[in-house]
């Protein structure tokens, strides 16, 4: 089967696609006919013919050149030029192989050949399939590989020839030019309000922008819609539910001035407002409550983010604050607190970063991280900025003024940040306690020190030891000696040199900024050797002096409990470790040696968080989690798999146990570890001597002091908030810049790119970051009024949700591939208004819905449609199909089954026989979702509601600011046959019957509840006839409910039920 090298023609047939590649590659230069002819004779002549050759100034002897032409160039042409020549349709990896210079210069991975050094040449490695595997279609025959080796070894002879150039010059990526060329990068400018002829029509300045364009096109706006339609529109647009009969009667009978505005205010104040607008927001942040992938693990407590969003919309949190909370809510000096319960709201916003898909056991763990970051950047940049930064992951953006460097400058913020389940209820409160505790402890430590160092001065005559001056001097001396030793111990240089080399972190000298933890149990700083502390031995408080320097968990905090989501389906081995608010985090480091040993004392767990991978299930990464047994001096992790990766360690004491962490080492031999323990015991011994002496010196005062210290601690301890709910949130890690990954390839890191915002907005100057990730600074740049993106994007979203189409229809992409604004001045007008009006979403909504533009009728006139068939200028209001959630919620409201309870754990999804696969929840949820609004139904990535999917609720993987609106028979099948729908129809019919009205009365009531209007005469007649026929069909009592159920079901299936006029 294998062809011989000499038989080029056969080789080409056999190789299949290389023939295509060569044809594509050389076609422009040679012409296909010529190529076909040459193919028969092989490539010896073809490639040289095609290029202009110059006889002089060659590299190599004539024999060598002949070898090149005969053996090498044909090989390159056949196997490489499809991707690595100027004529390639797309040059791969930036490598050109059609000139010697090209090979010397190399591609993304550096020079391809080192003339004279075959083994040192990337090209040779690649054809040997050692690093790269080239050509990708299959390994070359050994003979060809040897030929290439030989050619490189002889110095890569190549005749001097003009470098081939492509016919088409590829445009350079010019960010500044692109910025100048595209509208969205231009500053937002206050446009003047346009003049209009029909000055009576506009109600709000925004109407003038709409009308001006209509007048320009000689169009008239459609008439005002009738009040019933407007009411139904407002109800659905603002709270996602239809008005009840009572509500609709109330509004329709109120014909006084300002009735609509009052209704709008009432709806904006409704608690349901946040559920409606919160759902829009969840579409943007790919909200889901499970991780998808193989086992669809839970994303525990995701619902806390959902509830946060609902509350934030209800509270009308200013948009800049909302942005700040999403990007850096964990870093705010003064977080926003829940008004009634006082917990930290702001930190919940950061949960959005972590709502994406998570993978267990990725073999390529770094690639997995790069994919997660990609999704986070994608969602962040589309949601807040309306640009597609992720398109620049592998190369500069194809169309927009966004560079690959911009992408990696943003990923640095994520490299510097971590995931946690935060104790959001107790964090603020307990932080205050932690500070008080530190003050309290410091007070006693100071007092003790004074007593010991100046004990001679302060001792009274009655003291039994006061007479022994010599003894006292001796003790003073001891104290001073210890002080010196303490200082010495803190110096890394004092360690044996071999040990110092393998120490990654020594908690005796860790900089304050690097001492980080989730919670407070390790205190504000490590406890250093000789530091006084309070210990309780057999219930009796005693003064202790630390014999080592370590990060020490404080039993003061024992008893913390966390309320996490119940029935969690989480296979992660971390799930059972009580980590929240109890975890010490080392700074991030690069692993140089896979044997990581930590000097610890106590009981608990250590977790090596490699490349931020945390869904540790299955055997592959099981070694990153290690229990710490009480009697262990060293806990060792075998991380050989991760050498070269970046990681940090997390230490958590077992519940009710303590944990001390002194050292983290990598590659420390048994011998070295033993040495360290010996050294430590020396300290330990002298500290113990000191302690005895000191206690003796203090006499009774030691006990008194310990007693007082304990009492004060106990008093403070009683105020700890022990219980807290948990939520996903960010936590600052070690501030670090990311490396550009060449072509997005996670195994090819390139230059470090400092953290900064988009170059097109703020230039590419690094952000000045005091400490940590710098997300707070990033949030400030996103919110900066000078940033042309943020305000435009959000007002456009609001316009889209209310009007059915954005001023920029592509709500998530304001870039070159997106659509241009239909009314650019209007967009800027709204953006500036929004900025000037405290960035209030509710007030922006109000302005739009009270405008005449919003209140136009859905009845269009034919002439206008002929001129503006796509309604680009807004001459009428097209009917809007309701979302799946609104349809389902309406059904519940009609049937009287709607449970208006807000918030809380998701209602399990109802599982049909067709919803199958790994990770299927053990139990199906109730058919009616417990009567709760749809936003409270569990969103499991692998088990999404078929009802919602069919009505275009997006599958949660990326930002979806504009849902599809499809129109398919499956929707009809659901409304016709889904047991939930039929069930609700029956319940609705029951309510109608119980109203005990006349038949026409019931019909009218049902019309009013479903459509907020009365039936027309013909409708009433048709309904009556249908019901009459129904009742004639069988026995009457049973039949009444059945007939009315059928009628109710029919109304649900009319288009008016799912379309808004």
């Amino acid at each position, binding site marked *: 089967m294998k062809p011989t090298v000499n038989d080029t023609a056969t080789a080409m047939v056999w*190789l*299949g*696609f290389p023939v*295509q590649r060569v044809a594509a590659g050389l076609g422009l230069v040679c012409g296909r006919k010529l190529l076909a002819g040459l193919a028969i004779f092989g490539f010896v002549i073809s490639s040289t013919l095609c290029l202009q050759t110059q006889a002089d100034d060659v590299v190599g002897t004539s024999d060598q050149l002949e070898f090149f032409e005969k053996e090498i160039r044909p090989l390159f042409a056949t196997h490489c030029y499809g991707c690595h020549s100027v004529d390639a349709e797309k040059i791969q990896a930036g490598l050109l192989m059609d000139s010697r210079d090209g090979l010397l210069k190399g591609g993304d991975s550096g020079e391809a050949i080192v003339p004279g050094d075959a083994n040192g040449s990337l090209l040779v490695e690649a054809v040997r*399939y050692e690093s790269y595997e080239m050509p*990708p279609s*299959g*390994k070359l025959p050994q003979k060809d590989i040897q030929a290439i080796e030989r050619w490189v070894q002889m110095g890569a002879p190549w005749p001097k020839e003009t470098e081939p150039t492509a016919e088409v010059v590829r445009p350079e990526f010019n960010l500044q030019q692109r910025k100048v060329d595209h509208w969205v990068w231009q500053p937002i400018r206050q446009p003047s309000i346009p003049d209009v002829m029909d000055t009576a029509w506009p109600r709000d300045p925004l109407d003038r922008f709409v009308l001006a364009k209509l007048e320009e096109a000689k169009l008239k706006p459609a008439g005002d819609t009738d009040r019933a339609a407007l009411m139904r529109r407002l109800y659905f647009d603002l709270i996602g539910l239809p008005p009840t009969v009572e509500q609709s009667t109330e509004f329709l009978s109120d014909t006084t001035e300002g009735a609509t505005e009052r209704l709008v205010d009432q709806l904006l104040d409704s608690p349901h407002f946040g559920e409606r607008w919160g759902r829009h927001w969840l579409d943007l942040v790919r909200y889901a409550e499970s991780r*998808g992938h*193989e086992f669809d693990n839970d994303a525990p407590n995701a619902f806390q983010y959902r509830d946060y969003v609902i509350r934030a919309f209800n509270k009308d949190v200013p948009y800049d604050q909302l942005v700040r909370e999403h990007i850096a809510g964990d870093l705010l000096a003064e977080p926003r607190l829940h008004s009634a319960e006082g917990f930290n709201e702001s930190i919940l916003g950061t949960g959005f970063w972590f709502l994406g*898909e998570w993978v267990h*056991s*990725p*073999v390529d763990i770094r690639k997995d991280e790069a994919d997660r970051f990609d999704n986070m950047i994608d969602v962040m940049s589309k949601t807040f900025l309306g640009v597609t930064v992720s*398109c620049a992951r592998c190369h500069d953006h194809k*169309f*927009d003024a966004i560079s690959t460097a911009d992408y990696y400058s943003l990923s640095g913020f994520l490299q510097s940040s971590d995931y946690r389940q935060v104790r959001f209820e107790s964090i603020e409160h307990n932080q205050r306690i932690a500070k008080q505790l530190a003050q309290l402890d410091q007070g006693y430590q100071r007092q003790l020190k004074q007593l010991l160092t100046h004990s001679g001065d302060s001792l009274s005559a009655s003291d039994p030891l006061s007479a022994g001056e010599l003894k006292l001097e001796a003790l003073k001396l001891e104290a001073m000696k210890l002080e010196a030793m303490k200082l010495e111990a803190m110096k890394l240089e004092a360690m044996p040199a071999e040990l110092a080399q393998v120490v990654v972190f020594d908690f005796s000298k860790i900089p304050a900024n690097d001492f980080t933890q989730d919670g407070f149990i390790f205190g504000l700083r490590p406890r250093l050797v000789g530091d006084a502390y309070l210990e309780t031995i057999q219930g009796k408080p005693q003064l202790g002096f630390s014999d080592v320097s370590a990060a020490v968990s404080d039993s003061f905090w024992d008893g913390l409990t966390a309320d996490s989501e119940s029935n969690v389906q989480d296979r992660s081995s971390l799930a059972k470790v009580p980590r929240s608010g109890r975890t010490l985090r080392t700074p991030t480091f690069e692993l140089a040696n896979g044997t990581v040993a930590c000097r610890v004392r106590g009981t608990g767990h250590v977790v090596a968080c490699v490349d931020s991978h945390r869904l540790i299930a*299955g055997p592959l990464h099981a070694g990153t989690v290690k229990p710490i047994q009480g009697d262990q001096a060293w806990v060792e992790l075998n991380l050989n798999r991760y050498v070269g990766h970046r990681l940090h360690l997390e230490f958590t004491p077992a519940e009710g146990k303590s944990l001390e962490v002194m050292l983290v080492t990598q590659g420390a031999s048994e011998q070295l570890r033993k040495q360290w323990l010996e050294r430590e015991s020396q300290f330990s011994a002298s500290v113990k001597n000191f302690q005895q002496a000191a206690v003796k010196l203090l006499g009774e005062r030691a006990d008194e002091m310990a007693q007082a210290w304990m009492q004060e601690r106990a008093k403070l301890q009683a105020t700890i908030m022990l219980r807290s709910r948990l939520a996903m949130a960010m936590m600052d890690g070690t501030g670090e810049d990311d490396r550009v990954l060449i072509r997005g390839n996670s195994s090819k890191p390139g230059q470090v790119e400092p953290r900064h915002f988009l170059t097109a907005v703020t230039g590419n100057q690094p952000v000045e970051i005091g400490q940590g990730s710098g997300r707070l600074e990033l949030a400030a740049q996103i919110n900066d009024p000078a940033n042309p993106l943020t305000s435009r994007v959000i007002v456009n979203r609001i316009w889209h949700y209310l009007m059915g189409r954005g001023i920029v*229809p592509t709500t998530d*992409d304001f*870039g070159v*591939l*997106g659509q241009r604004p239909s009314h650019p001045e209007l967009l800027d007008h709204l953006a500036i208004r929004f900025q000037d009006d405290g960035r209030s979403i509710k007030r922006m909504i109000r302005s739009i819905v009270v405008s005449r533009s919003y209140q136009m009728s*859905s*009845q269009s006139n034919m002439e206008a449609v002929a001129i503006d068939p796509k309604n680009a200028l807004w001459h009428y209001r*097209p*009917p809007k*199909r309701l979302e799946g959630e609104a349809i389902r919620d309406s059904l519940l409201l009609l049937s009287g089954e709607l449970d208006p309870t807000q918030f809380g754990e998701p209602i399990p999804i109802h599982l*049909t*026989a*067709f919803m*199958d*696969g*790994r990770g299927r929840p053990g139990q199906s949820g109730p058919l009616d979702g417990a009567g709760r609004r749809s936003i409270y139904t569990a969103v499991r*990535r*692998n*088990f999404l509601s078929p009802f919602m*999917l*069919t009505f*275009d609720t997006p*599958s*949660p*993987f990326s930002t979806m600011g*504009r849902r599809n*609106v499809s*129109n*398919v*028979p*499956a929707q*009809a*099948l*659901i409304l*016709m046959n*889904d047991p939930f729908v039929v069930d609700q129809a029956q319940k609705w019919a029951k309510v109608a019957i119980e109203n005990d009205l006349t038949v026409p009365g019931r019909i009218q009531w049902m019309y009013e509840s479903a459509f907020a209007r009365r039936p*027309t005469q013909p409708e009433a007649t*048709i309904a009556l006839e249908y019901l009459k026929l129904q009742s004639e069909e069988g026995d009457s009592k049973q039949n009444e409910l059945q007939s009315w159920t059928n009628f109710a*079901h*029919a109304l649900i299936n009319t*288009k008016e039920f799912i*379309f808004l006029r």
Partner: protein
Amino acid sequence: MSNHKKYPCQRMQAEPNSRREMLKRSASGFGWLALAGLLPDPAYGGSTWSAKGVKGSNDGLGVAGHGPHHQVRAKNVIFLYMDGGPSQIDTFDPKPMLDKYNGQDPGKLFNVEPTQFNNNGNVLASPWKFKQYGQSGIPVSDLFPHVATCVDELAVIRSMVSEFPEHTFANYFLHTGSGLQGRPSMGAWVNYGLGSECQNLPGFVALNGGLIPPGGLDCFGSGFLPASFQGSVFKPSGSGVANIQRTEATVVQQRKKLDLVNQLDALAVDQFGKHDSLESAIRNYELAYSMQMAVPDVMSLASEPAHIQQMYGMDSKYQPTRIYAAQCLIARRMIQQGVRFIELTCPSVGGDRWDQHSNLKQGHENNALAVDQPIAALLKDLRSQGMLDETLVVWAGEFGRTPFAQGSDGRDHNPFGFTVWMAGGGVKPGIIYGGTDEFGYKAIENRMEVHDLHATMLHLMGVDHKRSTFRFGGRDMRLTDVKGHVVHDVIA
């Protein structure tokens, strides 16, 4: 096409006057309606759409999406998904070297890549014998005695590679061209591009034999494409698909109810004005109504002759074989109705899917027993009915397995070289394409990427994979991402 007439739903509608009319009408079945609303909007694909197709013009080409770009070789696809990753070296890629080095340390023979379970054992010879079959002489192991009788129909591709050694990534990748969740599946892309030829059935069906692949139903999702292109999950028993059974006691009752709906809808025009979106929604009810009849009909295997049922293995003693036999037979019947893309998932054989991390012998035997006879019957049946030439059958797992053991008697995941095969639909029959190294570990000859497989499948369906795009998130997305080459060597 003519058999549309057979269906009860046809009573609802006049016979189409012409093929052109037929196409136009059928195009408006699944998917088209959704697109009708979207297409004029350049935000959705913009210029990649043929404006002619959008308006449903009667040229019959741009029936939905862009329509075919070139000659159509395969009208339909049956994708036989071998969940878990069958072993190439135990099925279609014999390697004598494994016998020679059986029990030896693979690390001494070749460079062993990281595996998912990191529990690598010694080189493991195949427990099965291989024989050459047919005129082509293609070797097949004893696991597939029935398929072996069809080898002259197959193009056996021994050089597939995937980018992922984990099931879920690899599944999404094989189904959607991306390792991550949320992209449209192959079947969705095909229907998006070509529209459905089938009025009463969805254009993309996943026939669930019992095992939904890791990654779940999103393997059949429509991603950012409209919901209409989602795969409909059918079970080869019961009502078949969700919400297909009417809730009314009788057809008459349902008809009356729908008549009432129609009457009221007609009056609603006064309220709304005339709008395409409303009219489409109204028309959907008739389509949905006829689907209720068409689905039970296509699922009803009793009407198949006894010898056909036997050929498929409907009478097999082994229950998984009976399940897969029903799936294959339903697939053939759906093809006859014009369903564009049908995927068959595997039946459960009690143990694991084709994912033998241990107990390779028993596990692979059970999985092979379940599918072998039905697959062979499907190929023969399609051939004898003259349908194989227009139906592309693809047999593929998400990756292959290692030539060395996991533990002592299993094999771990191997994305570096594995076997898939194609048949019918313009595929070159009776050939072997590409090859792995002497241990069957890595593809070294004519490596074929998953993107290449997709490009080739689309090509056979008349679609240029580079031109079938949908704009989402600032990019013109396609099934093959930015990659993929049509492998012409496997095309007849």
